[in-house]
């Protein structure tokens, strides 16, 4: 059952990626084009998912926004995972005061009020940051800040490797610490790192969506799941324009699929 679900999830993700990467061809209109005579229009042949409050075609915005989130969230997750791999393997393998120090820094990172820090960082960015740059900065920040939790998991896994037989053999044969980490520890941590990567992707997608809901994150007129979900802010708007829920539905499906693609054995690690 789990394997079948995983296959379906992979299929859905491939389809969503495929469609979004072809947004330039498939989108009925530009994501920023305002059809000012049709604001808040219901789905029709001209606007298959209707329009937003400024008359922008929702399907086009959803395609472009999904592409943006689905390309950049994995990139940010990769960055966070690499940082976590470095910090976690160092903490786990070195142990002692160095390992404890790295883990305390990770704890400190996890205890910080990130939402407020992100708000502050966003407020201090140059105002003339272009939307294309703002989206990169948003995901870069998420990637740079998201290493702490996976690093703790990686450190725990690396710690178990430290006392293993092959580690003793390696030490006895005079392998340097750096080489040992790169050649022995990291490859053994691959399943853990993969799991952390797959977990981080939906987390970052949701983080960007949260920032977008607060009016931060990706700048207008660039669409992202974050600013597309702002259509759901008003309960009354959703009652009258249910098609505004389309981005939320897609987000739900994609996040669920990302969770399903992680092999169960990787979670257990």
């Amino acid at each position, binding site marked *: 059952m789990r394997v079948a679900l995983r296959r379906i999830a992979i299929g859905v993700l491939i389809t969503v990626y495929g469609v979004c990467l072809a947004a330039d061809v498939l989108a009925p209109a530009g994501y*920023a084009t305002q059809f*000012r005579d049709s604001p808040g229009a219901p789905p029709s042949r001209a606007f298959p998912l209707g329009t937003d*409050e*400024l008359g922008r075609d929702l399907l086009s915005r959803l395609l472009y926004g999904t592409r943006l989130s689905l390309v950049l969230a994995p990139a940010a997750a990769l960055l966070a995972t690499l940082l976590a791999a470095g910090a976690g393997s160092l903490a786990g393998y070195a142990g002692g005061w160095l390992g404890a120090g790295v883990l305390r820094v990770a704890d400190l990172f996890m205890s910080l009020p990130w939402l407020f820090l992100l*708000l502050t960082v966003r407020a201090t960015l140059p105002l003339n940051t272009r*939307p294309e740059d703002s989206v990169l900065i948003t995901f870069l920040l998420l990637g740079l800040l998201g290493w702490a939790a996976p690093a703790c998991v990686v450190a725990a896994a690396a710690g178990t490797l430290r006392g293993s037989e092959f580690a003793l053999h390696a030490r006895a044969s005079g392998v340097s610490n750096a080489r040992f980490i790169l050649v022995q520890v990291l490859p053994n941590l691959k399943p853990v790192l993969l799991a952390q990567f797959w977990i981080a992707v939906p987390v970052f997608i949701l983080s960007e969506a949260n920032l977008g809901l*607060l*009016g931060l994150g990706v700048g207008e007129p660039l669409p992202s799941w974050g600013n597309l979900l702002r259509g759901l802010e008003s309960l009354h708007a959703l009652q*009258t324009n249910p098609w505004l829920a389309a981005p939320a539905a897609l987000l739900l499906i994609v996040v669920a699929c990302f969770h399903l693609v992680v092999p169960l054995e990787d979670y257990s690690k």
Partner: protein
Amino acid sequence: MRPRLLPVAVALAATLAAPAQTGGELRFCIRADPKTFNPVLVNEEPSEVVRYLTGGVLMRVNRQSQQVEPELARSWKISDGGRRITLDLRPGVRFSDGSPFTAEDVAFTMQVYTDPELHSPTGDPLRTGPGKIQTVVHSPGRVSIVFPAPVAGLERLLDQVAILSSRVLRSIYQQGQFASAWSLNMKPAEMAVLGPFHLAEYKSGSYVLLARNPHYWKQDSAGRRLPYLDSVRLLIQQNRDLELLRFIRGEIQLINALDTDLFDALQRKSPSSALDLGPSLETEQLWFNQVASAPIPAHKKEWFRSSPFRRAISEAINRADLCRVVYRNRATPAAGPISPANRVWVNETLKAAAFDPGSALKRLRAEGFTQSAGVLRDARGNPVEFSVITNSGNKARERMAVMVQQDLARIGIRLNVVTLDFPSLIERITRTFNYEACLLGLTNVDPDPNGQMNIWLSSSSNHQWNPSLKRPETKWEAEIDRLMLAQASEPSYRRRKAQFDKVQEIVCQEAPFIYLVYKNSLAAVASSVRNAAPAALRPQTYWNIERLALSR
């Protein structure tokens, strides 16, 4: 305009025709807990609501006719070139504790409101010049107030001065403890007021309960003592969606201000309760940072300080689309600082800038700007690109900014829209001046031009485009300063109007603020409320609270 007023007229006709019934509790929401019950120290809306409902005033601005009407003062006479006002007080009036109202109370009230130590936001505008305000009590029913300098629009200022009981508060004032009097933990029985209601109970974070003042002086045409209602409960509710939900459920009967989305939602569910009162006093505007020391590139400062550049931007913005798309036709393209809702002071000769990208480009070309490959460049070849900040969470402003972004793209200008949390935005526009343009609204509570003194005087910290100037930096700012100061001490309405009309013309000509729209005043009044006469001026729905009644 006519179709918008029709439902209002129908609703009014229905409510006015119905016979009033006494009793009952009216409920509506306030956004936050009041900060004080001391009417002298009121500085925010929730406290202002309590003061309006409990305070008795010498005269009141009728929110519909916008004319001043007698209240505790039966009549008055202004003399000495606007320096003196002599008031004949209504006899037989009693405070809510049963003590009589006399000229001594008026004299005491003026003394307290204009005490510089108290920094009363209501009393400060009355201190027009150096020297103290004198009061002369001729008799218990007659008093004169003598100001050190003429006060323009004095009657309208007195609309907010709730008369204090000298019997209750004089000793507290003399002991120097007035600033802590009537705080939120006061006992309701200590409050002696002249308004239609008095404080009965306050539960922090939940509600303020006001009970009928049994000694209120006003009567209806049948001789029945007002107010009709037994009590008013002010429910503390910040969330506007929940406020509407409570209205629809019948838990509250009034909503003073609705945004367009919620208004549309209400109109679908209860069309007769949703009232579009036409243009409000509120303006939405965009301005450029003209502060000389601002940390922005010199070439951008040059653009922003150029009147033709600002006017070109104004012409490139499609205001009609803003009204139609963002406000769904519940707004009017703005011409200047005063909305048509302010019938007394609006300069009706001014017209909103017509949307004309061609004319905007022509104006810019005359200033040395060129357009090539869809990009506008200044005479030095710098591409015209700037950012506009607005407060995150205000959907209408965010939408307007994105529409302006597309309008300006037509003439080759790249606009970056930045939404900031409100404290960060205020920090930038008032302290660091690290911004290029800003889109915000201005809430005009007081229709009188003196209420806008803090915006137009170049020395003011709220002279947003270039605040706190030691002296005006341009001729037109100097002229605005001169005209505003002149009208502030001019007793003649006709001459004041001419002076303020000129101010409005200069503002349109120089465009330090690019006015975008006048939002409509959108309110909700339940069908159970009788005698409602909603108006565009605050407090829109309950300004005649003493005459409101509930049908059973």
